[in-house]
């Protein structure tokens, strides 16, 4: 082949490192903390770890899934409150639980294209300090009142007030188009793929054990900065047992009766937290004497039609991975680590089952052969969301930083990230050790 090519040489986007605050169960340690408080803390910890004080970073991108309207410029406000140079631009991204992945991926692309030399991507979420809206009735009345010019029009608007308007509207985790909670959606998928209760509990137990072991070997010393007196994820139960998990009652898919298998133990609890990842070009890393943990090779988003039951709500990553593997000329077995976000144990197991299923891979993914099984000892080896918790937009940053460090420790190989998201979406990514 000639050396000529249509595409110019593309730079590497390198993961330099990450920082997150410990994740805390909802209405617990961070009950009084706002999204801005938490992401600023995550940023400041990252700045401290890498000595970025007063530096202008190419861009800070990230977001929150549950956001107050006053936080319309959340990332920029966080930058202004951080130790970064105040001329660092920032923008908000929102893609449900894939917010962090999308933010990091888009920064990586900009770095590869030479548009940016450095970037910080991540996310934050709180279900404790969640925005609460006034009722639709009160909102309509107030809007009409603000439009009213004359006193009589104002009185007319106010006459529409009903005491029931005072009931506040808290955001739910239900899908707007189906009214089903994410757990109830996953329960359908879990059942469709015949995932057993035992398999889900085993995955949950492994998550706790792996996370506890990673803490034990100081793995997180340079990935986490304490916040509000918390230095470890508060959901972690290193002493959990299969018996304890087995004793919990199903909470999702209860309409399935005896077929209900999803408990509070094998589902991720509502969590508060924030994470941030520093990326840069190789030159940026070298000039600033910064480590290079891994290359951000590629990422892919997918979406499925869950509204009419054609596919499970959280199955989009199964599709995204197939497309991304093809584009990169890789097989599912070409990875040394798999980071599959544990929204629910059932999500991970359904995805793995789908990849092994000939019919699914043929009919849904359009493949000649199934993607196949993975070596389970390479799955979520330092724990995942079931143990650490899942502050929606913050999970992507946790995964990227964790995997990048694991790859760097190993010194070679590749890692796969898979994150499902509300709205039937998912983002997956490939990292490569350096």
């Amino acid at each position, binding site marked *: 082949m000639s050396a000529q090519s249509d595409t110019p040489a593309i730079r590497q986007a390198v993961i330099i490192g990450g920082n997150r605050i410990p994740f805390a169960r909802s209405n617990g340690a961070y009950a009084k903390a706002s999204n801005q408080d938490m992401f600023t803390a995550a940023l400041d910890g990252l700045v401290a770890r890498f000595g970025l004080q007063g530096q202008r970073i190419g861009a800070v991108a990230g977001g929150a899934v549950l956001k107050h309207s006053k936080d319309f410029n959340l990332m920029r406000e966080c930058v202004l409150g951080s130790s970064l140079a105040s001329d660092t631009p920032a923008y908000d991204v929102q893609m449900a639980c894939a917010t962090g992945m999308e933010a990091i991926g888009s920064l990586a692309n900009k770095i590869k294209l030479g548009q940016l030399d450095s970037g910080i991507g991540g996310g934050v979420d709180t279900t404790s300090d969640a925005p609460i809206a006034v009722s639709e009735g009160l909102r309509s009345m107030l809007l009409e009142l603000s439009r009213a010019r004359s006193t009589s029009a104002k009185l007319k608007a106010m006459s529409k007030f009903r005491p*029931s308007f005072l009931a506040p509207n808290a955001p739910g985790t239900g*899908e*707007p*188009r*189906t*009214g*089903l909670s994410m757990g*109830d959606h996953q329960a*359908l998928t879990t059942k*469709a793929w015949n995932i057993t209760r035992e398999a889900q509990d085993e995955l949950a137990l492994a998550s706790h054990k792996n996370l506890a072991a990673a803490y034990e070997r100081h793995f997180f010393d340079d990935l986490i900065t304490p916040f509000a007196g918390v230095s470890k994820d508060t959901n972690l139960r290193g002493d959990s047992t299969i018996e304890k998990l087995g004793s919990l009652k199903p909470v999702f898919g209860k*309409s399935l009766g005896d077929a209900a298998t999803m408990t509070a133990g094998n589902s991720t609890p509502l969590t508060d937290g924030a994470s941030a990842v520093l990326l840069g070009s190789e030159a940026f890393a070298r000039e600033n004497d910064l480590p290079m943990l891994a290359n951000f090779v590629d990422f892919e988003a997918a979406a499925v*039609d*869950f*509204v*009419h*039951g*054609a596919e499970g709500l959280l199955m989009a990553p199964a599709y995204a991975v197939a497309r991304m593997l093809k584009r990169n000329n890789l097989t599912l077995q070409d990875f040394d680590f798999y980071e599959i976000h544990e929204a629910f144990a059932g999500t991970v197991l359904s995805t793995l089952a789908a990849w092994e299923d000939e019919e699914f891979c043929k009919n849904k993914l359009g493949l000649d052969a199934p993607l196949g099984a993975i070596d389970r000892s390479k799955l979520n080896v330092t724990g995942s969301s079931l143990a650490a918790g899942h502050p929606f937009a913050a999970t992507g940053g946790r995964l990227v930083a964790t995997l990048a460090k694991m790859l760097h420790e190993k010194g070679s190989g590749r890692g796969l990230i898979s994150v499902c998201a509300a709205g039937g979406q998912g983002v997956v990514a490939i990292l490569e050790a350096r």
Partner: protein
Amino acid sequence: MRKTIDLERVPTLGSLYAKALGDRVKELLPGAKTSLLVLPEVSHRVAALRPDRDQLVAYQRLMGDTVREELPSVFVHGLVFPVAMSVLVRDDFPLPLLGMVHLANSVEHFRPISPSSELEVIAYATDLREHRSGTQLDMVAEVRQADELIWRGVSTYLARGVWLGSKPERVAVSHDEFVPPRRSASWSLAADTGRAYAAVMGDYNPIHLSALSAKALGMKRAIAHGMYLAGRTLASSAPHEGGYTWSIDFATPVFLPSRVDVSFIESVDSTRFCGWNAKSGKPHFSGTIQRL
């Protein structure tokens, strides 16, 4: 050939219900209406119906639909319903309106309809026939724009306990036991669902408004409007790019408040749907949306 009677404007449902109520009282008077069951050979027509944009937006919000430049099929039904009603409350209409049960709807929505359209509406009653519990008939409404038929709806009603001939032998009807399919969605219907629909579409039928008003008409609680259920279904599944038909059959009423589980099963050209009580599993409605 039916005689066409032009209405100046679309009548308000309130006045129609008031008339229906008056008729009901008259029926109770001795020697009132003869029981000769013949449908009047008339069509009621409104020559120029202009959809109200505020009402359209309120409807789209109520159904959780996107506000777009297009009349939802069930919204069109709501617009023409009073014209159909005006036929049902005619003095020469043989069946009592109040207490009639809405059994099914079948609609042909030939193409997307712009909210700026000027619509001609014609409604008439037809096909009086037997039903195992009484007598049923179809109310047909047709919507034209510049002589092009763009929407045609058939609503089937049942007058319980009214017989065309002699009361037939009670036939044992075998009901297949309903097994809820895989649910795609779950609707939480609040106690004020009926009032919210009435506020938008002007349909203040007492059986939808409150437990008290429903009880007055023999219902144990307020029930969800059938068109509200159809509206929610179509809001999530109706195509926007071309014509389609849809039909819905009502099995049992949805007593408010309630949680209704819904299933959508899609194939290439159609979506089959059904809704059932999330608690008891009893079926409420089922139907199909078919692309043209």
